[in-house]
């Protein structure tokens, strides 16, 4: 099984007639995802890769019963696209686009919440439930259907971890790249909750990095909820010089300096198995799970 995405998911691709949208739509179809519609305002009536294109998400949903949107729309229009999908009743919006203005996302969040729509991203590789459906830009072939859930703030770093898990003889239930932007949709905790309830997920991996306080919050949640499954963690940026991007006032608001050491300490205090050397991730997960059973 999986969370959020499964073999019955019906994808609409917003921005499907663009270069990126077209390329990745094809990859998703090849992987076996049900891509049922594309949306590009002004291009209705066309068919691309055998998929009908609509002017609006509402028409696409009415005609094809699409229930997941994957957004490749350019940065300055992407927030608008996410709200359009929510208003059309799409319950999961996956925003691949990077460089979306922060103030746009500040407006998107309450709009989506009012429509009870979940968002993954922006600036993320998307979500995949191996063997069932891929809604994103990750290379499908490195994944294998299995019982490890993966939540990550990074793109290629996730691929590295997934690859190691697969090579260590295990597989994944669902892998989600939550995105690296300051304001994102679903956070670590939202997804940890879903994985806790998914009976086919045996363990969860949290792939974090320096900056912000998402990892510390996830660690606190794991402690407070007495999280029922083993959790593995990794933090990138142990040796990075003090962040250039974070204004110090931002760090105060979050109550965290965003340093790798603090994150690792918080995770270990919560009983998370923190892997220190990236090259040994898959092996360490395999050995730990084996010794438990």
């Amino acid at each position, binding site marked *: 099984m999986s969370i959020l995405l499964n073999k019955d998911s019906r994808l609409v691709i917003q921005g499907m007639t663009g270069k990126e949208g077209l390329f990745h739509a094809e990859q998703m179809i090849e992987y076996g995802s049900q891509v049922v519609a594309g949306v590009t305002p002004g291009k209705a009536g066309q068919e691309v890769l055998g998929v009908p294109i609509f002017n609006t998400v509402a028409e696409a949903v009415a005609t094809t019963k699409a229930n997941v949107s994957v957004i490749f729309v350019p940065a300055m229009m992407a927030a608008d696209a996410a709200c359009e999908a929510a208003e059309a009743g799409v319950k999961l919006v996956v925003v691949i686009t990077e460089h979306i203005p922060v103030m*746009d996302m500040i407006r998107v969040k309450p709009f989506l919440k009012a429509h009870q729509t979940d968002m993954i991203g922006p600036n993320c590789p998307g979500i995949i439930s191996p063997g069932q459906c891929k809604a994103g830009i990750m290379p499908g072939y490195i994944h294998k259907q299995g019982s490890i859930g993966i939540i990550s*703030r990074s*793109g290629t770093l996730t691929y590295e971890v997934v690859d190691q898990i697969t090579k260590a003889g295990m597989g994944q239930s669902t892998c989600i790249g939550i995105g690296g932007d300051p304001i994102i949709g679903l956070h670590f905790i939202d997804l940890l909750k879903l994985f806790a309830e998914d009976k086919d997920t045996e363990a969860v991996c949290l792939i974090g990095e320096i900056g912000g306080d998402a990892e510390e919050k996830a660690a606190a949640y794991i402690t407070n909820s007495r999280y029922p499954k083993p959790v593995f963690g990794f933090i990138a940026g142990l040796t*990075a010089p003090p962040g250039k991007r974070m204004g110090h006032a931002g760090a*105060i608001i979050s109550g965290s300096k965003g340093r790798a050491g603090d994150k690792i300490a918080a995770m270990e205090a919560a009983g998370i198995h923190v892997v*220190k050397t990236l090259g040994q991730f898959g092996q360490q997960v395999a050995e730990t799970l084996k010794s438990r059973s």
Partner: protein
Amino acid sequence: MNVHEYQAKNLFKEYHIPVPQGGLATTAREARSVADSLTGPVWVVKAQIHAGGRGKGGGVKVVHSAAEAEAAASKILGMILVTPQTGPQGKQVHKVWIEQGTDISRELYLAVVLDRSAGCLAVMASPAGGMDIEEVAVQTPERIFTTHVIPGEPLWPFQARKLLFGCGLDPKQVLSGAALIQNLVRLAWEKEATLVEINPLALTIDGRLLALDGKINFDESALKRHNEIAALEDPSETDLLERQAVDMGLNYIRLSGNVGTMVNGAGLAMATMDVIKQAGAEPANFLDVGGGASEEMVTKGFEVILSDPNVKAILINIFGGILRCDTLASGVVAAAKKVNLKVPLVVRLEGTNVEDGRRILGESGLHFEVAGSLSEAAAKIALVTGGVS
């Protein structure tokens, strides 16, 4: 994107946030005539660089005549100013801002900042102005007052009043201060800034509030719709190599070690730097060529890495996802030949068609070390740079 204090103050003026009268100078003579045009008897000459703590480094001088202003400016202009925020190499000063001195009764702290976890802007105020606010947050967190801005809406006056009463202002000052805070929020929202900070916000002897300093950080993703803000960028503020990298679409940060790195994706790039350090070597840079790394980007990456004379070896770590490893390997070979690579190169490739990729590297006739895993790559790098592995 950061701007200078004088640029922040010009924006404050535009938003009816009071600032001291002042003017910009690039020569000592200009500084004198700016001082002449302002009423005395005290003036402040301030170095304009993108870093805080300028006073501690000798970049801020209080003067008592136009002649003194000229003398102070001639000392400050051209100097390499070292502050706690510039790093030991410091920054050269090209401009000074001369303004009227202010009779200060109290100093407050005020900022509008992006709250990542709440997903909105927040306003912070503190009676402990003029200090390092991080210190205040650690030592006396009860002296920081915070309120959140409803997305897309102006700040309610009561929110601003609450902050100012918290800072201990009297009712008359609170009313004028509330308008100032509302204007600051409007500035942040309209100009799309993720940080607008006034530290200190002075309460003058005669009861006025004045922004004595200004720091603004604009959202780079939004600059396309703010030409007036994009025009404020000062290219001399970025490291030359970093600037070249940005022009080429690369995400590069120069560091002090001797192992150049080239990785696709920021998270993996950071993790690769960690692996290098764990193996006993020091990374010379952070370089993210983007999730999809093309031959062109790899060539550009080589050029940027090699223009740093400290680089003694290079580690390339690419997780070829959608991009196939054979394509990438051909790119690395072509790029290495083009830039006439002389330092040892360790390549770690993973992903689609990795066997073909490794074969292309092996048959290139170039001196590559090919690593099968991340751990192996780090060990090889440590060996060639003489670190312990």
